[in-house]
């Protein structure tokens, strides 16, 4: 039982790291929560002299939780694309040419 809990805690901690790296927002809380639950249970099921692995899994999951919360609290921003803005201005000039041609036909 203890071994199964440690394996599950390990898997979800790994998933938490992936979700924390990816821009998943609050969705990252899901694997972190499960990692904390399984590592907590593994810690409780372990004998006092055999708690090193679950203890470290708990610490890592806790740290990832802080990272995920901090990342989900940062405001969403879009990059200011100067090149694209310039392309839009050029494109609008072309559009006006097309519209002038269209009006000449009509």
């Amino acid at each position, binding site marked *: 039982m203890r071994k199964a809990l440690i394996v599950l805690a390990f898997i979800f901690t790994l998933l938490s790291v992936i979700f924390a790296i990816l821009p*998943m927002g609050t*969705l990252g809380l*899901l694997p972190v929560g499960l990692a904390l639950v399984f590592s907590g249970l593994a810690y409780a099921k372990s004998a006092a002299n055999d708690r090193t692995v679950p203890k470290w899994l708990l610490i890592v999951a806790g740290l990832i939780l802080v990272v995920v919360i901090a990342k989900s609290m940062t405001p969403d*921003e*879009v990059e200011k694309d100067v090149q694209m803005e310039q392309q839009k201005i050029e*494109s609008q000039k072309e559009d*006006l040419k097309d*519209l002038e041609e*269209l*009006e000449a036909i009509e």
Partner: protein
Amino acid sequence: MRKLFMIAAVLISSITSAQTNKAVKSGEKLTYAASYNMSGLMTPLAQVTMQTQTVKTSKNTLLHLSCNATTYTKWDTFFKIRDNYESYVNPTTLKPSLYKRDILEGTYTKKEKYLFKGNTIQSTLKRKNMPETTKAFQISGSASDVVATIYQLRNVDFSKMSPGQTKSFVVVFDEKEMGVTAKYMGKETVKAGNLGSKTCYKISIGAKTNKLKGTDKNIIYLTADNARVPALIQFSIPVGTGQLTLTNASGI
């Protein structure tokens, strides 16, 4: 008698299609947060802006409608989206003259341009690693592009409609005409960014296309005032569901 019927039909269709624009102004800027449903949680993915601007040619004054979708910086490394949909319309009738679509989604690119010449569209299409193609095809008189149709929807007087009643549009998309229906479903209060909580008309969008999924799953909430601003847009497409929530509205 047949002639009389034809004249009546033409008159009725001209009254219904030649709607005067009262809701859309030049200088509007609507900003939305686009979220995608991932395992039941709405994850913010991109910013969508809808802008209007007056442009002048030597003969006419037109309204330039543009819709841009830009992924948030944190997503750019994984999946960059820079979609741009534009339409140049008559400011009174919102009838389009030129429609453009410029898509960048990950590694996929597509550029499309439609020139509306009466009942004919002169289209130009350029896909990634493909040669540019041009085509001319016939459309019905009431057909519009997708951008102009969104703005035309804002001019429908839903206050005179009862729940279940529909309004039809003809949209040209991917060089094909398709029928789109807007079904009025009643009123609901929705959060509308800096406008606060607003009573909105709930409109279900239906189209004969495989791009939209489900019945009454694609909903637009338009503020129940003169501006009829889209406050919330919920969509259901084959790859999932999501929503666009209004975060900021100016110039309305």
